[in-house]
């Protein structure tokens, strides 16, 4: 485990998390959340949790994002916060 890489990904994770909550467009929030999940997945595979990373890649970054997008397109993209 290279701690510099680890730290860089951890920073990115926090940035994407804050970003997905700050962005004023729900579709953007959904996509940023997908990016967040994918960063998490990278982090976990660095930590040696391959199975968890695999699951997160398919569930968190894959299906969750699709579900978000589906729900957002069914409702509205508008948000005030």
């Amino acid at each position, binding site marked *: 485990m290279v701690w510099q890489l680890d730290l860089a990904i951890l920073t990115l994770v926090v940035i994407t998390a804050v970003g997905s909550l700050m962005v004023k467009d729900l579709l953007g929030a959904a996509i940023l959340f997908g990016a967040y999940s994918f960063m998490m997945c990278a982090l976990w595979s660095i930590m040696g949790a391959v199975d*968890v990373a695999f699951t997160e890649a398919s569930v968190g970054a894959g299906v969750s994002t699709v579900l*978000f997008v589906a729900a957002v397109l069914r409702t509205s993209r508008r948000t005030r916060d």
Partner: protein
Amino acid sequence: MGDLLQIIVAKYNYWIYITLMMIGLYAMIGKNNLVKKIVGMSIFQTAIILFYVSIGVKKGATIPILEHGHGEHGHSAAALIVHAVDYVNPLPHVLMLTAIVVGVATLGVALALAIKVHNRFNTLEEDEILAQIREK
């Protein structure tokens, strides 16, 4: 200062997980939009998963899949001595697989409810919905 830095470097994963968890928790309570709250909920759950996975990490250990364990000679491989220090702790991974599943299940139900609320009130902002309810 040196001590503090030492602590931070030694435990920075725990710090990041707490930061993420606070972000998620704040979003769940403080945000006004229902879908944003759901995003916050997912971040909150993922943060906890990060914490669990961090528990399982061992320095100098590899992924929890045994070497020499392939194929039919599985039983002879059992005779090989396996040292626990060589592999990371598999138990948190197992628990977190379950937690991820629970997370996506909750997410699906929450989104379904959000769509239902939107069908009824035609908005996702909580204060606008409450205003509509009060008007009646």
